[in-house]
């Protein structure tokens, strides 16, 4: 396996310290950690609200969200944070010369297979993040920083399941 491109990336421990400091600033300033999947939830709710408002009003998931959140679903903290991630990732890619349209996949699968499995993986994450009250950033990373029992448990479950299934999906990546 060739990993020579690694030299272009930041030292992972240094990157970890920076990421930890970003998280710490978020906790210090806003009292909450990072997140990502919550923004997707806002997006889904806004779409359903726009396309089928009566359906949104009659379905428990949406109406419970409306009850517990006030104001526009777009004007939420996580939506703005994810927009920031998009911009931050773009700037970083621009500086390091990594902006390029491409499909990254294992050597033994087609682009089509890669896209199908990416969608499946995303869907699983979308569902899992609801049960886990957050994804890798919101539940696992931020949960770890504040020592939340549930967050750390979710973290171990995510990585544990990844390893448990690695053998079955090795064709996708190796």
């Amino acid at each position, binding site marked *: 396996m060739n990993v020579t491109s690694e030299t272009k990336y930041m030292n992972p421990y240094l990157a970890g310290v*920076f*990421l930890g400091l*970003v998280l710490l600033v978020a906790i210090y300033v806003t009292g909450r950690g990072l997140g990502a999947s919550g923004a997707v939830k806002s997006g889904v709710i806004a779409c359903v609200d726009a396309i089928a408002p009566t359906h949104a009003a009659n379905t428990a998931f949406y109406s419970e969200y409306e009850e517990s959140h006030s104001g526009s679903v777009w004007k939420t903290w996580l939506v703005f944070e994810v927009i920031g991630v998009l911009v931050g990732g773009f700037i970083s890619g621009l500086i390091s010369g990594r902006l390029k349209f491409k499909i990254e996949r294992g050597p033994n699968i087609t682009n089509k297979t890669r896209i199908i499995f990416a969608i*499946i993986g995303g869907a699983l994450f979308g569902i899992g993040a609801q049960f886990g009250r957050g994804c890798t950033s919101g539940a696992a990373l931020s949960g770890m920083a504040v020592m939340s029992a549930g967050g750390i448990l979710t973290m171990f479950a995510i990585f544990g399941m990844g390893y448990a299934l690695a053998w079955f999906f090795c064709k996708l990546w190796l």
Partner: protein
Amino acid sequence: MGPLVPGLINGELNLVVALLVGLGFGFVLEQAGFSSSRKLAGLFFGYDFVVLRVFFTAGITAMIGVVVLSHFGWLDITRIYINPTFLYPAIVGGLIMGAGFITGGFCPGTSVCAAATGKIDAMAFIFGTFIGVFGFAEFYPLFREFFVSSNFGAPLLSDVLGVSRGVFAFLMTAMALVAFVATNIIEKRVNGVKTTPISLGTTRSVIIVGAVAIIGFVMIFMPDIKTASFAKASKLSSDVVLKQAEAIDPDDLVVKLLNRDRLIQVIDVRTADEFKASHIPSARNIPYDELANPEWRTVLQKADVLNVFYGTDEVQAGRASLMSKYLDDNSVNKILPEGFAQFKSQYIDFDATSTKDESILRFRTKAKTELQVLLEDETKAPPPPPKAPKIVGGC
């Protein structure tokens, strides 16, 4: 004292902060190589452990930061968002996400970052997350019961394990270090020794282990501000307490009470039962043992308001006033230099035959009736219970 939201930063400004935090988040993720699904998936096949390194270093940095900030009283950890624990949903959700990770090669945060650099597979992944959430929403009534089951509130893992936050942070750091070394060996073996992406040299290892040992030592002996203030105030000898606590003249206090002075608040640190039996009019009861609890912070730390403490004796009041000072250095605290019983006999139950001094007699007789009026007013409108600040967060 953090967090600055809500309070110093609100509304739109908080959204600007969100944007900036996200900017830093996205930038670091991309710099670390998280925009590549093959790098991310490498974690599960042993050829690239960058995810583990960045993730654990970040988690531990932030965790230690939170412990240190709260120790120095710069961050009120009772006001930060702690992810709730729904035990079985947390496990099942994690397992589903783990399956998503190995098939999709991203997690939601990294997929956004990767999409920003043009990865089409990441865009497909994001599309998938929308489908997933939409599916969940549509079938929500089916899972609803499980979704809200085994709710344990928001416990800290350190509390569950019965160790202090400092010890827990130290254990996690030690665990991460072991993982770093182990994965480094695995990675070398999987990739062949020639490619050594990041090697921990001997000197560097010594420095890291030494630094962690020092941090660990400090953290184990570092109690949080609440425990520390409480222990400190309770440990001092009575002499020291009385020397350090500032007293208010009882007559002055009575004059201020009768004038309904809004810039003082009288705090009774005796037990709730003692308070119920009898107390100084307009006083607020905060039992000594509860004084350091977070719900009283806002009460004790009102700007420009003088806290006047009294208890069964002046030493108890003194300890309370010092504790208030430790909790917030800006608070202004005084004590009634006598126990409640003495104050009661001198003012509330003043006996006119006890003194021959004309001016004292006149003042205290007048005070007795007016204090009685205050007490009646108070029963009509008792002070509102303390409010714990609302905490928002989560995915």
